[in-house]
């Protein structure tokens, strides 16, 4: 762009050149330049920064949609994995990128809605335009098959009878908050046992060391195999892929939590660009490839863009604000 103007100005007289430049500056200042830029967008490859290491659920679903997305936008899509701090490193990095739509963030929505509330973060909800939600994890609480209970009420009854605290495998702030809230509501203590990753949760449950664990989908195969029992879904409504499992709403709680796979652009990205990305994302998410990936990895790949996505993010934030307030900072 800049080079273009420079070469043009060289052929003009100095005064004319300064007029052209001033005019351009004025046009840019008045915001006329932005739509022109948005209309041409994209003119180069787009980078999607995935906030987790390669191979995870977020990474796989993004990699599955890049082909269709690139085709619709007419530019190649590059995927870059920047793991760390539960998505915090990538979010910090993308928030600082120029708001031109060429660098996007693919992450787990909790790293945007919840993380700034419970840890020191260099970004917040407002640091991003929320482009779209491309799917959701099927979060649920589960327990080992040898435990005597198979519901939340049974668990509460058991620990009350044995006069002890609930011990739960905890891998993230989100499961800790929910269990602490539930424990508080039902008048018992909750002790988190830290584990690393979904497989850590599964292992702790299967060795019988904890009463309950939380995961985003790794519970499904072992429940199917009879090595574990699903207790309840962490979401407010029932899970799309496990409609028989009771949810937070069924248990009488006023909210539930769902971890979404979401796509964000730095704040200030022109709305036309955001719309363009969202419009190209919808067919990409609905492509056979992404839907197959969702099915195999036990994720509900349902596209929500524009205002719907922003609304989901806002609601999620409100839930976490209430949760953190009720439970208190740990």
């Amino acid at each position, binding site marked *: 762009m800049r080079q273009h103007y420079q070469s043009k100005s060289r052929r003009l007289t100095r005064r004319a050149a300064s007029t052209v430049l001033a005019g351009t500056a004025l046009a840019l200042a008045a915001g006329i330049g932005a739509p022109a830029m948005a209309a041409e967008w994209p003119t180069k490859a787009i980078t999607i920064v995935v906030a987790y290491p390669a*191979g995870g659920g977020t*990474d*796989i679903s993004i990699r599955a949609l890049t082909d269709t997305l690139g085709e619709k936008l007419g530019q190649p899509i590059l995927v870059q994995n920047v*793991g760390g701090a539960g998505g915090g490193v990538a979010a910090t990095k993308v928030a600082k990128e120029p708001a031109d739509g060429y660098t996007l963030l693919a992450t787990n929505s909790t790293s945007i809605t919840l993380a700034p509330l419970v840890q*020191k973060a260099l970004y917040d909800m407002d640091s991003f335009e929320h482009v779209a939600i491309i799917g959701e994890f099927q979060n649920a609480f589960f327990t080992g098959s040898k435990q005597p209970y198979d519901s939340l009420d049974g668990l509460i009854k058991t620990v009350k009878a044995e006069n002890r605290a609930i011990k739960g495998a905890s891998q993230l702030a989100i499961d800790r908050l929910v269990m602490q809230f539930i424990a508080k509501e039902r008048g018992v203590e909750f002790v988190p046992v830290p584990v690393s990753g979904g497989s850590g949760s599964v292992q702790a449950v299967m060795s019988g060391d904890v009463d309950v664990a939380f995961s985003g989908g790794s519970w499904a195969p072992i429940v199917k195999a009879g090595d574990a029992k699903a207790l309840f879904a962490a979401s407010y409504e029932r899970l799309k892929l496990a409609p028989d499992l009771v949810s937070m709403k069924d248990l009488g709680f006023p909210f539930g939590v769902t971890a979404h796979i979401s796509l964000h652009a730095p704040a200030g990205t022109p709305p036309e660009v955001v719309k363009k990305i969202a419009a190209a994302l919808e067919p990409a998410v609905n492509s056979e490839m992404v839907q197959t990936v969702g099915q195999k990895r036990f994720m509900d790949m349902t596209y929500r863009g524009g205002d719907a996505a922003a609304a989901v993010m806002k609601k999620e934030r409100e839930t976490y604000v209430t949760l953190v307030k009720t439970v208190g900072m740990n």
Partner: protein
Amino acid sequence: MIEYVSIAAGEIFTPSVIGYIILGVLIGYIVGALPGMNRTTAIALAIPFTFTMPPAAALSFLIGINKGGAAGAAVSAILLNVPGEPSAVVTTYDGYPMTRQGKARKALTIALLASVAGDLLATVTLILLAQPVARFAIGLGPIELASILIFSITFIAAVSGDSFFKALIAGILGLLLSAPGIDIETGLPRMTFGMLELYDGIPLLAVAIGTLALSEILVQIDEGWHGDHRYPQIADERTKNADSGFRLPDVARITPAVLRGSLVGTLVGILPGLGATLASFLAYTWVRQSSKTPEAFGKGAPEGVAASESADNATVPAALIPVFAIGVPGSLSTALLMGAFMMHGLTPGPFLFKESGAVVFAIYLGMLLASAALLLVGLFGQRIFSMVIQIRKSVLLPVIVFLCIVGAYMEGGGMFGVYLMLVFGFVGYFMKKFDYSFVTFVVGYVLGPMAELTIRQSLIISDSNPAVLIDHPIAVVFLVLAALSIWRFAIAGARSMQIAPAPASDGGDR
């Protein structure tokens, strides 16, 4: 059963599938041999390419990468004293001295045979015993794992060699490196100095590339290399050295070490989170301790190479045992493979065999074939790779430095990883100069996070009440072993101090 085998054979023994397996092993071998490149990353990047392959071919391909990577890492460890991956660090102990003695080809052959043997034995264990072994392993909770890790940490003292306290200092420094990060219990950042990059702890692979690879480059530059290619070459295997080639009697010599290494590798591989670095370290220590000539270790003992390499490779199939049998991955690379299973409609776990018996058999066959491919690729590859020691160092070293930077960038979260790698390159350089064991340093920081996690888990689960040990006999056994090993190594260490020139101060009442 028989019909499964014939279906599976029909699926695997096609030119394209065999081609995929060989390609997988080859990719893994090259990635493993290149310092800075990591096989876990190679698998993650290869997964999208397997979407369209048939399931058995895709999984054999990915497992092949893993197997090749474990074996390939030995090549650069032996030839250049630069382990391709942290798990090959122990291989440098005896592999590189062998190269300096002009026995590079022999060391490479031993490493390859040990790798293939360890790999094969663990694969057979997987095929025959997956279910019972995995059931047993999953019953081992944090309390057992914590005691195994405590026992392993005491082994740091065992490899100390001549400088007991320096090795201990290096090991403890390594452990301390795992301190920064989010505190697992409170969720609050600890020693991160406000740096977001440190929230997940110090990126260990970037540190490993620095301390293991870059530091060695600095040492080699320092060792009298001044850009002059006439600098005396390390005697290569063409010089008619009496003991330079691999001969039949060598097989008998390394067999006990290979068997021990395979056993340790299989056991460590099955347990979640312990990993190949610990396996090769424990195997090496065990073989050295039980050897009649422990003083030969570290100076080019073939048994040392065999122990470390067989253990390293045995962890690859062994880590798949819990995945196949109960659907629980124990490490990042097996979690990736489990993801790949699910991508292809296979749900790992007890039903895997009932639901897709033919495919499982095909994967088993593919894994065995990958072992054979490993032998092939290794025999061919080491001929090519062993030429690198004849490359002028002014060409070779910059290439390795470049690979180190790329690797640190990929593994350490961008430029932060590169800076960290550079810093630890110099740390490693001075450790080598002052004879602080960098192996105990590496083992310390590999074990640190895992030990902290399991010990704190155990304390929470048991309400800090030691009475809980009564219900965990396996944990008691390992804790007693740990106490014995501390006692034994402490005495050995104290003795080594007496032999050493007496220190200026005798301690006094400090």
